[in-house]
């Protein structure tokens, strides 16, 4: 009896260590995201290589690279970062099909490409990006990241055509309410409120 107990305890301890290894690594990645996107991306990349069935590490690695490609980096650096982001999105998609959270990332990355060279990618990707957001909102009509990023994309297009952006402000408000009520579970995505608040400022 004692032996069984010992073995059981040992077994639990071991699994617990294994669990916390993943949790520790993910937590570290999320902390790094606040300070150093590159280090965070590399942390998630390591986790992704070890967790072959889990889409979240690749998802976060992609998110780090997308956020890292905005701004005034040299063109070459931006291009490499965007390509890296695409690789992680592809990896995440292979593990989790038709996932609206990943679709949001693809939509954001397309926007990066359009900013990078609008004359080449504006034509190529704008229709595709519309289609991605439409699909995402059909699958997850109450997901605040889907609602907010889709609305921000449409606001960008409307601004380009000199159209009124107010039709999308209601969507932003809806997203903010949903963000406030969102209960994060595990490492599932829960970011995006600050972006929605920024967009709200444009409405006012």
């Amino acid at each position: 009896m004692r032996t069984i107990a010992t073995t059981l305890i040992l077994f639990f301890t071991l699994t617990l260590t294994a669990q916390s290894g993943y949790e520790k690594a993910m937590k570290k990645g999320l902390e790094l995201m606040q300070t150093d996107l590159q280090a965070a991306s590399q942390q998630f990349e390591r986790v992704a290589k070890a967790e072959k069935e889990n889409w979240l590490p690749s998802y976060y690695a992609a998110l780090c690279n997308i956020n890292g490609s905005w701004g005034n980096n040299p063109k070459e650096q931006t291009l490499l970062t965007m390509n890296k982001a695409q690789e992680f999105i592809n990896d995440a998609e292979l593990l989790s099909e038709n996932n609206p959270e990943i679709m949001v990332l693809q939509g954001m990355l397309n926007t990066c490409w359009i900013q990078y060279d609008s004359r080449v990618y504006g034509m190529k990707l704008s229709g595709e990006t519309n289609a991605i957001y439409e699909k995402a909102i059909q699958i997850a009509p109450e997901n605040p990241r889907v609602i907010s990023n889709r609305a921000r994309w449409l606001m960008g297009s409307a601004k380009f055509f000199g159209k009124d952006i107010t039709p999308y402000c209601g969507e932003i408000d809806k997203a903010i309410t949903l963000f406030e009520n969102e209960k994060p579970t595990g490492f599932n995505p829960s970011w995006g409120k600050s972006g929605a608040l920024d967009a709200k400022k444009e409405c006012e």
Partner: protein
Amino acid sequence: MKTLFSIIFLLITSFTFAQTTISGIVLDEEKQPVMGVNVYLEGTYDGTTTDMDGKFSFSTEETSTGILIASYIGYEDYRLESLIVDMVGLKLRFRESLNALNTVVLSAGSFSAGDSSKASVLKPLDIVTTAGAVGDFVGALQTLPGTSNNADDGRLFVRGGSAEETQIFIDGARVFRPFTPTTGNIPTRGRFSPFLFDGISFSTGGYSAEYGDALSSVLLLNTNDVPKEEKTEIGIMSLGANLGNTKIWGKNSISLNAQYINLAPYNELVPQNNQFEKPYQSLNAEAVFRHQFDKGLFKAYSAYSYSDLALIQEDVDVEEGFYFGLRNRNYYGNLNYNGYLSDSWNIETSLSLAHDNNNMTIETTKIDAVENALHAKFKLQKRYNNYFKINMGVEQFLINYKEDVLMENDTFETGINHGITGAFTEAEVFVSKDLAFKAGLRGDYYGASDQFKVSPRLSAAVSINPSSQFSLAYGNFYQSAQNNVQQYDKELQPENAQHYIANFLYKKNDRMFRAEAYYKKYDQLLTYDTTRVQFDSYLSNDGDGYAAGLDLFWRDEKSIKNLDYWVSYSYLDTQRQFRNYPVEATPSFATDHNFSLVTKYWIEDLQSQIGATFNYSSGRPFTNANKTGFLNDKTSSFQSLNFNWAYLIDQQKILYFSVSNVLGRDNVFGYQYSDTPDVQGQFNRRTIGQAADRFFFVGFFWTIGGSDNQLDNL
């Protein structure tokens, strides 16, 4: 209790003992430390990022062997499989990876459109937003250096070559009759809708060994890959209407496009210089089907086109002119599969089939020509790494051509069946990101004349700094005679050209400069002794010639806000003795100086893009019958100012307006001299001018589906 203790003790010791430290340094090719590199043991969470000195150190509980990975964007991944305990004081040598921006390109001779690479000169939208091009991709290419503007013809004339010397390929397979036939001074257009193509690559010489049976130039078109959204497109134009639709289901998609053009209403409104009996009308229908396999993509492209027209052709010797009628039916189909066999092997196979039926009526003479043609190609690519690739392939052309001439109740039948078998191999070597070579060899067996021809192709490129590079190309090229010539003499050999090209390219911050000098030597050109090729002509390969010149291109999207412009200039010096030329001379389609200025200006407040294009070509040679000599005179220069305006009504609707030759300049392409002199002993002449002084185009385009952006159609 004892057992438990011992187990725990054992466990702790093994844990403590298993903590191994992995350490080392990452250096680049210049032995400089690389900071920020992700170094980790594959399959574990253990890893770290290199510090400012390129150093790393982390501990792991792993024992025995492991795979150490060092990865950083911009560099090739480094993998080391070894005993964990040996992973101490490591020196990892990092190699910069090749990418579109940092790597030298083999740019001699080629222009590409639609990507962000260094050699890319045109953006996808340019094909349709260039004033004067009116949605014809060939029109936009005519603003690039190396082409001679022949506005009365509409096809591509490259570096002193005739229009037939340019071959067009869709998804790797040859297009046998890419242009709708026309007559006289009515310019032709490409049969294909520019919206169905994604990448366009245009080479004015020195191209890859993959392309055979082309003497001067190749134009490579790739149909769009898998579309991501469904849509319907409607276009209403002053000349006709356009309808397109894209459907997606599962891993399949289909895009359809149909266009009907009829010039009759337009000709009623705008006076024409030609007397039309039956104004030009055409119907084009295209379909692209795609299926995504796990390891590749299958595409089937199919196009049908019908066109007809009839007019009274003016003639200096026949006061009432003569009747000319033309009807053409063309079918083109193309199957392509491109995929991976393994990580390093890639396969591409394509098959194109074409059927062309052309009926021409000149007064009472009828000429019916039917051409059936096939091109099959099989290509393999082996990628050893990013630095070394080998391409190889085989291809077969089969052509069946039949011509019936009906003349005053007599029928003459001629024709030819022939084939060309080709094989090629080519190696691409990047010594570093600054130095690259390509060496290829192809062999072609021309069945009709029983000739085997070998064509080597070489190119090299070196970058001198991140924004500038030099490249060189050499190649030997063959092309068989046109079917309507070869049918009279099977023994005719393919014509030959050798290209020597030197290219300089500068690209930085949305500004680009390209200069290219070339020398092209022609040999074994077709000659004959009659006015035109006919059954009793004496045909041979006695002709030769040369073309030399300089092409300059400058594009600037940055200096002036919202203005994008490019300037091309080509200088061409060419002479040849071919066809029925009595002496070596500059052909009438080759002009010494060609200049284009293309501007596009975006007005944000009006959501409009306005564009203006100015084309200039120096005078074309013609034979003045009142002077002695052959091709002894030149017309006045060709000049045309074109204007366009695209107004984005909203994301779905666009209004497009364009005028060609706004100033109405009376351009002259040549003269037709009378066969007999008048009483003063002078030969009268007829001016061959433009089909119309100006050309107006108004179109409204509407895309339905999703919330599509009309920029797509701009």
